[in-house]
């Protein structure tokens, strides 16, 4: 059962200040945090980087309990990252949260339809993250 480990969150954002902020928010809600500055780096971290999506060696995939990503990123948007995660055998069960500074209903629906756990408006507040943490714990148990 749950051995009391802190949830491990992968936070993806191209903006350095936002990365720092989300990292602090998550850490102050008792999460282990790894940050990535773009979708490609995130996929690499998740073990989905290369053409091989098999995990024959198993040892290199990092255990991540939640992925939280910005929507507006150059080259690969948060939506595209979400799709890649949901398409992968090993990562599709991991909940993905999308953040954006822009409240665009079509964008929000698009992400939720693609399987995002939730959509959060930036700037994130402590209360938002505390709630997310609660929802995450419910997911795990």
């Amino acid at each position, binding site marked *: 059962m749950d051995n009391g480990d802190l949830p491990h969150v992968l936070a993806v954002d191209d903006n350095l200040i936002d990365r*720092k902020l989300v990292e602090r928010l998550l850490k102050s809600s008792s999460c282990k945090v790894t940050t990535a500055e773009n979708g490609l780096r995130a996929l690499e971290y998740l073990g989905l980087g290369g053409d091989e999506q098999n995990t024959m060696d198993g040892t290199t995939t990092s255990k991540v309990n939640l992925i939280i990503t910005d929507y507006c990123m150059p080259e690969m948007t948060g939506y595209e990252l979400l799709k890649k995660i949901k398409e992968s055998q090993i990562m599709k069960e991991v909940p993905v949260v999308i953040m954006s500074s822009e409240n665009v209903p079509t964008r929000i629906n698009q992400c939720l339809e693609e399987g995002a756990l939730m959509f959060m408006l930036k700037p994130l507040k402590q209360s938002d993250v505390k709630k997310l943490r609660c929802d995450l714990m419910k997911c795990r148990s």
Partner: protein
Amino acid sequence: MNAVAQLQRQFVDYFNSLYREGVVDDQFAELQKLQDESTPDFVAEVVTLFFEDCEKLINNMAKALDQQVVDYKQVDSHVHQLKGSSSSVGAMRVKNLCIAFRTHCEAQNRDGCVRCLQQVNNEYLFLKNKLQTLFRLQQQILAAGGSIPTIA
């Protein structure tokens, strides 16, 4: 009132004045909440990064607007970045200027853009000055053995 209490009072008053004048908004108070004994420099670190980001983006925008043919998409992407950062640290006036700036980018209005850039630069310098004063007060409190008051 002893020295520490006086400094703490000054800090709270100064902080509140920044808030009242609309220089910072609620998000800045949120940042303060994230700072504790284990991360005493969090706000100063984030704000320093923000100022570095401002300088870089303002320079890039100035260069882009100086070109014979202005790439408004480029300028807009810089403004979008700055809007995001300023929103995240609670720099309300900078953020609002960015919103106006984007409409000039969309309209491909060079004069409007240049004017906005000037305003953004002025506001950034103004904010930098104010926050440096705030951080100085913070340091004085800590040096006097006090703790930083939590702003409600």
